[in-house]
């Protein structure tokens, strides 16, 4: 409003002033004897075009900052519309660069930074307590969990915050999906603390979460209520059988209550029912075993520093009764899904590496746009010179250019934000459900992500905008005004900048590509690796015997029966049991060898497995010496072990390992009765581990899985397995999967990495090639005249071509050379992920470098040939 009013007054004043001038002149002429009509005609003639001068006055008029910006934006928009190809390529380049950047940040933000999906998340804190010292201590889950006794002590003494307990468990229930329910074991105050409200019934009373094992009550999540109980209004008071124990439903939480952990729970159960969730592993009665994660609601009158100070003291005091020789380290962190100190410190390097990779893509995109702007700048040189000559301020032109860049950055950033959403969702979707479950990662952009994207886009546009703009403005005007084509005699300083840009692009994209190539090769190698055991035609049957309240004896009877039965089925090679899920889970222990003299070796790390009879036959692991385990070994108590060849060679060299002794559990001296071929693990960052197999016995049966090696009749064997188990226990839920699924699960992280690497590398390559093409094409077009002269003077076309290519490719070659060094450094950093592929794998390095050079040559040769085909006379006459 005010602006319009001001403009009106400006116009009125100007009109009045000019009218006064004309009128005074007319008056003077009339006074000298002209007729009024003649006087007016004469005065107007002398004055010149009124509108023209008004326009000149308006042009020179300083504008309000907003009006100014509006004018700059309009101008920038028009100028982009005039060169749609440039605008589109620049926007796409920036969009892709921003997309990978924001995509990564979105994922990291959702995992470790985003406030929890609870009411009033600002005062919610994660309280992590780690301990170290000489007392025995066990933890279940992360190292940041406390025992029941410790939690009770801290909760009752804390004044700065209210502490609540949470732990995750899976319960078997006929009502659940695949027979299981995801449960959160909670203290009575957790649900109110996160702002949940009961839509039906009530939450737990303090009494219901006070006596271990006393109160089998359950609160349903809204989703479970709707999907499993049809939203029945009378659900409260009903009984639901979980882990073969009847629980009474006391209430249903509201729809928005999804818990403070990544996985959404189906039900909430008082944490005092812990013993039932893992029968045989009663954690709640053991003060030295941590399993409870603490969530805190800060009191209104407290701050984080006070919380830290108080909880550090309380944490230490809570250890005194049972772990007096351990020290507590308490961390108070903002409420977020995965911000344990360990994740923050271990994940940081990986994140940094990924961040470098995505920044490289953004950098390439930036370099592209800089090059395009430079090229475009040359074309606009004449326009700029004229505007400068007309008195436009250099600052004003600079602002104009930067507005243009900012507009490109802003549009590119917006498109990039949309793309990043797609990319982040694709990454999460590519993780199989059994790895992440019903997660509640929120990837939608909140104001922080928006601000980040905006900042990245703006900084990017400033980076790519300012160099070409300054370069343009610094130039001398006159030569540009004079020549029609707007080109300048190539000055010595101009070429290096573009060369540096090309070289940078080549360096960065080569480094990206090589590392992506290494990951792809690692994936390839992992897929085709000789695993030393069968990776197909094996079925794995799992049942939650522990949750189903089996005793060890009953579990052994069931499994042995099914195994003995399955061994006789047609098409079955062998059936056995194991405690580790092949390729997916692993067991590690410290072992010692014992000489006949009784002397013991220092401890060394081994992989371990407890296996049933015929295990090696079922998994087709060759027995090299001695024997495998038999049914008698399982039933007896003989202290025997089978080792793999790696261990045999490493520990016994040329000696016969049979009859030697090894200890993996204190006080159990095992005699080695067999040596088998080594097997590969498929875990990222794990080197081959020597392995010790022991017979499956006792309580381990509760954890065991069935393994059936067969000749390919997967379906028949699977249904026979289910049928046999059902005959023995009709209510037992058995899940059967082929071993291939485990292989694919184990390779998932590598597949994701290789996929992401290949995508980033490919993106980098496309951006670098388009950039290269644009710049070389532009350089050649600027030299068309020179080329024309050379050809006209009789220069050999092929030598001219060589010259152009040489000039275009020199910076690429230089960039590639540096890029190879950078790539070797990167390869070294990701060595752990490479499955033995050398971090300077010559094949990857050579093919990538040659590929990039080839693409660059192609990018250079097309415009060069086009320039040569041009009639020299046209090029010359083009002046």
């Amino acid at each position, binding site marked *: 409003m005010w602006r319009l009013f001001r403009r009106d007054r400006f116009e009125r004043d*100007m009109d*009045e002033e000019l009218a006064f*001038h004309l009128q*005074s002149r007319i008056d003077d002429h009339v006074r000298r004897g002209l007729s009024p009509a003649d006087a007016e005609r004469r005065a107007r003639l002398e*004055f*010149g075009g009124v509108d*023209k*001068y008004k326009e000149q006055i308006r042009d020179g008029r300083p504008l309000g900052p907003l009006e100014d910006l509006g004018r700059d934006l309009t101008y920038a928009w028009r100028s982009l519309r005039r060169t749609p190809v440039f605008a589109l390529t620049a926007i796409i380049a920036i969009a892709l660069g921003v997309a990978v950047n924001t995509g990564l940040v979105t994922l990291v933000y959702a995992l470790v930074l985003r406030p929890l999906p609870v009411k009033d998340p600002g005062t919610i804190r994660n309280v992590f307590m780690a301990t170290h010292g000489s007392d025995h201590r066990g933890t279940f889950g992360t190292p940041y969990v406390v025992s029941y006794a410790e939690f009770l002590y801290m909760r009752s003494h804390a004044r700065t915050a209210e502490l609540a307990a949470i732990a995750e468990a899976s319960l078997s229930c006929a009502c659940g999906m695949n027979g299981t329910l995801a449960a959160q074991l909670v203290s009575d105050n957790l649900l109110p603390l996160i702002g949940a409200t009961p839509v039906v019934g009530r939450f737990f009373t303090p009494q219901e979460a006070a006596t271990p094992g006393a109160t089998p009550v359950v609160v349903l999540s809204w989703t479970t209520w709707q999907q499993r109980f049809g939203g029945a209004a009378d659900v409260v008071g009903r009984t639901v059988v979980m882990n073969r124990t009847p629980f009474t439903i006391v209430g249903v939480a509201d729809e928005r209550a999804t818990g403070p952990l990544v996985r959404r729970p189906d039900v909430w159960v008082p944490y005092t029912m812990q013993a039932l969730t893992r029968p045989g592993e009663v954690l709640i009665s053991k003060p030295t075993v941590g399993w409870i994660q603490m969530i805190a609601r800060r009191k209104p009158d407290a701050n984080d520093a006070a919380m830290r100070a108080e909880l550090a003291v309380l944490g230490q005091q809570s250890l005194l009764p049972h772990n007096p020789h351990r020290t507590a380290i308490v961390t108070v962190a903002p409420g977020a899904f995965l911000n344990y100190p360990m994740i923050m410190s271990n994940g940081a390097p990986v994140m940094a590496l990924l961040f470098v990779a995505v920044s490289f893509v953004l950098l390439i995109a930036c370099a592209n746009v800089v090059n395009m702007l430079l090229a475009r700048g040359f074309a606009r040189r004449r326009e700029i010179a004229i505007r400068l000559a007309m008195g436009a301020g250099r600052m004003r032109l600079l602002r104009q250019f930067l507005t243009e860049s900012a507009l490109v950055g802003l549009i590119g950033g917006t498109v990039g934000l949309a793309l990043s959403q797609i990319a982040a969702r694709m990454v999460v979707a590519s993780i199989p459900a059994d790895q992440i479950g019903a997660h509640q990662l929120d990837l939608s952009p909140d104001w922080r992500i928006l601000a980040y994207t905006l900042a990245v886009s703006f900084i990017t546009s400033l980076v790519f905008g300012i160099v070409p703009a300054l370069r343009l403005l610094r130039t001398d005007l006159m030569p540009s005004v004079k020549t029609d084509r707007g080109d300048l005699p190539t000055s010595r300083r101009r070429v290096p900048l573009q060369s540096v840009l090309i070289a940078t692009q080549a360096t960065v994209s080569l480094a990206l590509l090589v590392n992506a190539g290494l990951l792809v090769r690692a994936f390839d190698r992992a897929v085709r690796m000789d695993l030393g055991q069968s990776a197909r035609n094996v079925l794995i049957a799992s049942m939650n015997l522990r949750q189903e309240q089996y005793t060890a004896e009953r579990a052994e009877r069931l499994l042995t029966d099914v195994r003995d039965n399955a061994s006789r089925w047609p098409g079955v090679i062998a059936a056995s049991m194991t405690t580790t899920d092949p390729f997916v889970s692993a067991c590690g222990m410290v072992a010692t060898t014992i000489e006949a003299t009784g002397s013991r070796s220092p401890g060394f790390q081994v992989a371990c497995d407890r296996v049933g009879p015929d295990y090696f036959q079922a998994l087709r692991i060759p027995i090299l010496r001695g024997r495998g385990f038999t049914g008698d070994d399982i039933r007896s108590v003989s202290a025997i072990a089978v080792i793999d060849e790696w261990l045999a060679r490493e520990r016994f060299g040329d000696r016969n390992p049979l009859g030697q002794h090894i200890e993996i559990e204190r006080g159990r001296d095992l005699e080695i009765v067999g040596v088998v071929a080594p097997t590969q693990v498929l875990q990222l960052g794990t080197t081959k581990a020597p392995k010790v197999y022991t017979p499956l016995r006792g309580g381990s049966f509760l954890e065991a899985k069935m393994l059936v090696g067969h000749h390919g009749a997967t379906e028949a064997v699977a249904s026979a397995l289910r049928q046999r188990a059902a005959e023995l226990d009709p209510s037992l839920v058995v899940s059967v999967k082929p071993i291939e699924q485990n292989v694919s699960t184990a390779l998932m992280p590598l597949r994701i990495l290789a996929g992401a690497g290949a995508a980033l590398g490919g993106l980098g390559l496309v951006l670098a090639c388009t950039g290269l093409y644009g710049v070389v094409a532009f350089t050649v077009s600027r030299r068309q005249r020179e080329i024309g002269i050379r050809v006209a003077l009789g220069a050999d076309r092929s030598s001219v071509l060589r010259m152009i290519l040489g000039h275009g490719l020199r910076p690429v070659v230089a960039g590639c050379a540096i890029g190879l060094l950078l790539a070797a450094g990167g390869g070294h950093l990701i060595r752990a992920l490479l499955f033995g592929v050398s971090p300077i794998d010559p094949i990857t390095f050579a093919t990538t470098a040659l590929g990039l050079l080839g693409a660059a040559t192609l990018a250079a040769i097309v415009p060069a040939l086009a320039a040569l085909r041009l009639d020299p006379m046209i090029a010359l006459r083009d002046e």
Partner: protein
Amino acid sequence: MASRDNDAELLPGTLEMLILKAVSLGPLHGYGILLRIEQISGGALAIEQGALYPALYRLQRQRLVATAWGTSDSNRRAKYYRLTTAGRKRLREETEWWERLVAAMGTALRATSEEV
């Protein structure tokens, strides 16, 4: 592009100098400045009268002249221009520079072959 205007017959910047000189003798409205310039230059500088105004607005923006609305001799509302301190300083500098230039040019143009 604009055609070659009459003000191109002035050396760049000279119009501004003449305006500063004109208002240095006392506040004037635009038309008065025109008359004063015609008078002090002996009518030698022929410019389109309109060209005066963009120059006036430029000087005003550079704060070399200040403006105020007043009443003219003919009893009409008119915008008066007067020199500011900065304007006075600029006029002095420009005059000195101009005189040095004229002297130098004069010497150069009068030089005979012996002196070269």
